[in-house]
């Protein structure tokens, strides 16, 4: 299997998507740029129809990442005791899901925004790159 400069195994896109869809808890971290600075927040996500989807509250910081901005989304499971683990990175553009049929399908997912606020929007990452690393 190919390894990277640090000697970590490079995962295939399929393996990455499998990890995204099976990993629990369904928590990842999203990063977007605000005021020329990177912002990072944990989010509850779902892997739905091949994309990472999360919810945002209008007015919340995270809602800034729903108008086509470049975002990064990361999930990992790292056990430092056994020196093993993996990490997956999704890069792409964040887009609000507006199609009513699709919103209805998303309503059936266990996806809640964190924090008080009115009914939130669904945001999907249109990914341009999915990569991952594993240490066995």
């Amino acid at each position: 299997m190919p390894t990277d400069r640090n000697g970590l195994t490079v995962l295939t896109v399929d393996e990455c998507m499998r990890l995204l869809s099976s990993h629990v808890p369904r928590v990842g971290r999203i990063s977007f740029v605000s005021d020329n600075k990177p912002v990072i927040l944990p989010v509850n996500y779902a892997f739905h129809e091949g994309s990472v989807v999360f919810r945002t509250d209008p007015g919340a910081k995270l809602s800034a990442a729903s108008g086509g901005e470049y975002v990064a989304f990361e999930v990992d499971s790292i056990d430092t005791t056994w020196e093993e683990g993996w990490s997956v990175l999704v890069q792409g553009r964040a887009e609000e899901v507006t199609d009513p049929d699709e919103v209805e399908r998303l309503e059936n997912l266990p996806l809640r925004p964190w924090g008080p606020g009115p009914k939130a929007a669904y945001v999907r990452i249109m990914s341009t790159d999915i990569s991952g690393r594993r240490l066995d």
Partner: protein
Amino acid sequence: MTDAGDLQRSIARLDVDECLALLGHRVVGRVAFICGDGPVIVPVNYLLDEGTVVFRTTYGTTLDTIGSGARVAFEVDAIDEATHSGWSVVVAGKAEEIWRPEELERARNLPLQPWAPGDRAHYVRILPSSISGRRID
């Protein structure tokens, strides 16, 4: 359509002391930085050293490019699998490679063992401009 358990999660802000205490107990965090058009997130082993976050990087990797003052955001969290409750701390600041000989010597003696292999001969310190955290229930 809402389900019976559609409670909004409550979020409580943590003060800086609480954030530092939580940071001091964990070993893995994620560095977010800008590379090209957009952000990148890389997990790292880190240590809290006198209120700054220190981690190691390998020459030639993307992460290694941030040590010349790049603005970064560093995140650590612990979220319970069953309840999705937990906490998250974010340190925003600038990343600087540790190059002064006495500082580098000191950094090399910190118990900073990366979880993953690689040369990781470079030591990077995040000088915080803000530390914030929240508890999620």
